[in-house]
């Protein structure tokens, strides 16, 4: 489980391990098994070591589940950077999906702006790939590869549009 995801979930308020896991399960639904939400404690440990979260001893008990984790200032900064990042790891859509949810629930950023920013980036990449495809002579091997890249980018862009639509509706409902 990506560190930044857990960190972002702590950005709103300190939480216990099991609460975090519950929220992850909610957000991932049937995919939570495959994505190993149980790994959360490992991630929390790493975050603590990196100084991005601390344990609130006063509120915690010995039970690991009931330990309360609090984000540090450094952690906040890290979350901010992560939210602004537009790198596009392939093919793991889950991270982006969680990014949006985390941003919304923590009130850190408008998920729609995040989607927009990502869309722009992907469109630019699509443009580059498309222009390259057009420039290639017909039937070249490179053209075929470029066609594949174009298709995937198209598919991702399609999904980003879905995200935008969905989050707009969600906002309207609130």
């Amino acid at each position, binding site marked *: 489980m990506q560190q930044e995801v857990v960190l972002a979930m702590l950005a709103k308020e300190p939480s216990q391990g099991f609460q975090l896991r519950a929220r992850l399960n909610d957000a991932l639904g049937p995919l939570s098994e495959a994505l190993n939400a149980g790994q959360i404690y490992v991630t929390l440990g790493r975050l603590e070591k990196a100084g991005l979260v601390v344990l609130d001893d006063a509120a915690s008990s010995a039970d690991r589940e009931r330990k309360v984790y609090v984000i540090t200032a450094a952690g906040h900064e890290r979350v901010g950077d992560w939210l602004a990042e537009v*790198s*596009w*790891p*392939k093919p793991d859509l889950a991270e982006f999906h969680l990014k949006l949810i985390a941003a919304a629930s923590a009130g850190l950023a408008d998920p729609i702006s995040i989607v*927009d920013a990502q869309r*722009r*980036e992907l*469109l*630019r*990449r*699509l*443009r*580059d*790939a*498309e*222009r*390259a*495809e*057009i420039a290639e002579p017909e039937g070249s091997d490179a053209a075929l*590869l470029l*066609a594949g*890249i*174009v298709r995937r*980018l*198209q598919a991702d*862009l*399609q999904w980003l549009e879905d995200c935008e*639509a969905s989050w707009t509706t969600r906002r309207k409902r609130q």
Partner: protein
Amino acid sequence: MNDTATSVLRTVGLHKHYGKAEGLVRAVDDVNLEIARGEALAVMGPSGCGKSTLLHLLGGLDRPSGGEVWLAGKRVDGLSERGLAGMRRREIGFIFQSFHLMDELTAIENVELPALLAGRSPRQARRRALELLEQVGLADRGRHLPSALSGGQRQRVAIARALANEPLVVLADEPTGNLDSAATLEVLRLLDRLHTAGLTLVIVTHDQRVAATADRLVSMRDGALVDEMKLTGGSARKLSDLVATER
């Protein structure tokens, strides 16, 4: 605000309404747009967002309920039917999703039609049509009927037709909507070539592939422009980065 001298098309507060009171539909809602000479603009949006209506208003195929439309520095939204027809003859070229070629005319007869309407002599019109067919790579198919041409070829004939009278701007409504992937590439290649040669284009599309080839992209929702994005001068990434990120 761009210099009006270089803007080919400009709209100010353009809107188109249907119905009234509760039944009021704002097909196009207060759109301010400016298209520079030689620019390729893509208009995207979900179906029913009004992008086709916007195109029709720009091209004089429909009259706005209000607002201004300027073509090459002249105001055109209030023109008479005669004036609009003249505008469509001389300054505007249209490309449609369903090609809209005349089924009973050969490719070359379709292409020369606008020239004939503009009063050119048959010989001139025929010569121009041959030139254009060459440009779009269909010189050997001049005598074919549309039914004997593939989708991509038909759209290329339609593009040639749109260029017959050397228009200032070409308006394309979902030009690749009825085409498969390979035909889309064909058409994109052609449009790209024309654009590089200086053609001003406004393309309405829902296909990101098509939109990505434009210089600028605007998004519409519920009749209004909601987003604008310059696609040129984008990220500094090299092409290899695209492949690298596949890993």
